[in-house]
């Protein structure tokens, strides 16, 4: 499975990752290797086999809806790179 540089650039955009030219080429090669190895799974007949997304057969786990104290707003913003009062500050969005 050969991955192209265009594929890498498209996926990097989806993943919000800035990659250098050199990184793109390394990742292109390594992704191709891993996907080539993974090709064996496409040879397995899985018709009629349901997918497993989770090993436990859990459905709709509920608990009582009890009011509990939430985190202190000072604590909530304590790890932010840039916070003003109780708001996170970010560069221009629009």
């Amino acid at each position, binding site marked *: 499975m050969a991955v192209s540089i265009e594929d890498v650039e498209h996926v990097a955009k989806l*993943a919000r990752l800035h990659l250098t030219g050199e990184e793109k080429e390394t990742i292109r090669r390594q992704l191709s290797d891993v*996907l080539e190895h993974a090709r064996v799974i496409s040879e397995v007949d899985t018709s009629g086999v349901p997918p497993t997304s989770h090993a436990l057969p859990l459905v709709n786990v509920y608990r009582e809806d009890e009011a509990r104290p939430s985190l202190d707003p000072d604590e909530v913003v304590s790890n932010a790179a840039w916070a003003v009062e109780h708001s996170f500050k970010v560069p221009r969005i629009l």
Partner: protein
Amino acid sequence: MSADIPYKDALSIAALIREREISALEATEAFLARIEEVEPRVHAYINLAAERARDSAAGIDRMLQKGQALLQHRYAGVPIAIKDVLSTKGFTTTCGSRILENFVPVYDATAVERVSEAGTVMLGKANMDEFAMGSSTENSYFGPTSNPWDLERVPGGSSGGSAAAVAAGEAPWALGSDTGGSIRQPAALCGIVGMKPTYGLVSRYGLVAFASSLDQVGPMTLNVPDCAALLGVIAGHDPRDSTSIQQPPMDYLGSLSSEVRGMKAGVVRELSSEGIEPGVLDSFKRAVEVLEGLGVSCEEVSLPSFSYGLSAYYLIAPAEASSNLARFDGVRYGFRTDAEVDDIWEMYDRTRAEGFGPEVKRRIMLGTYALSAGYYDAYYAQAQKIRTLIVRDYGRAWESYDVLVSPTSPSVAFRLGEKTADPLSMYLSDICTIPVNLAGIPALSLPCGLSEGLPVGFQVMGPPLAEQKLLDIAYALEQALGFDALPPVASAGEVA
């Protein structure tokens, strides 16, 4: 006296403190001294919590003196290393990543809360591959950990710091996390015991997510009774984790029994033939003979879908990771780029590029690719169907066998730098441990001998919630094997 404390197991240390032979502070000081001695060579910890540990040990001593030790303080004063993937309130939690270099959690992970309630003393946060992605601890932003058996070799990963800390006498107990073998493989490579419990037995609350359907927290210890004890501390339902199993508390230590006569073990052909180093295979086969001598009937069994386990895992785990790691965007917590940016999108792109290391970027890219339009069915959906086949193969095996066994790792500890240039060869280190995570079942690794002077791990797998059975078999095997070798770093002075 205090020089003898490192390498005592956690249960012995707990007994010495309970009987007032030593104080909790003496125990902590003994380990801090040991850390000071060997840490420059081993580098098992990212951040040490020396002062905090002294305060907490002194607090335990005051309680013991006043006779105030609560019943729940079963292991009062026992030092412990915590893998840096578990949130510790008020103490830096980096996940081995630049992006969380200065992250100070505002709450404890449930597993951390439980070991703390049991009276243990956290010595520090153990080194790991960045976001638990790796099999050698070389992907840590803070530099690699060395294997105490041979400082030129890796300790395994991703819980390599936890494993090396226990193996080097820098902590009697450690917590790790296991997504594809990250507890068992480093335990094997460092000659200690490590267990991945059934998915959902230990709460994931406060465990920084890598692949949520596979991640599980577990104990890393010097021997099987210590493992049973620590599992008993951390296991149990937690309403803050919706995948937590409703299971009554178990006394794994109290129930521990080496009476295993009559049990049946299947030796997994797909995990104990091709691709396994001859020295590892020899050591494994000798241990199987010992197991038979204990009255456990052992026969080979084929689980054909296991041949596809690695490929399925390296699509499913990166897919989940690419989604989980989307939260690291430089806004609410963690590193943010200093670069001049035009808008928020560029801030995201640059922050993530500068904050993540190469392996994390590779997995995010692989996972995003596997989930992207046009490739989803061929890769991700097909991998999930393979996962079903693996679950079914295990299910069939449990009709005939109590446990399944295999080597834990296809090789002994490899050299630092040996596999870093070729990600696929690194991924192959997980070949024996991955099927367990895909099926959500419990498994344990214990040392079964040495090959070329390096430890070999023996893996025991069982059906969901069969932890007691795994511990019993491991306990019987541990006593019969009598593995008591210590790594050279245990006695070596300064490096020549």
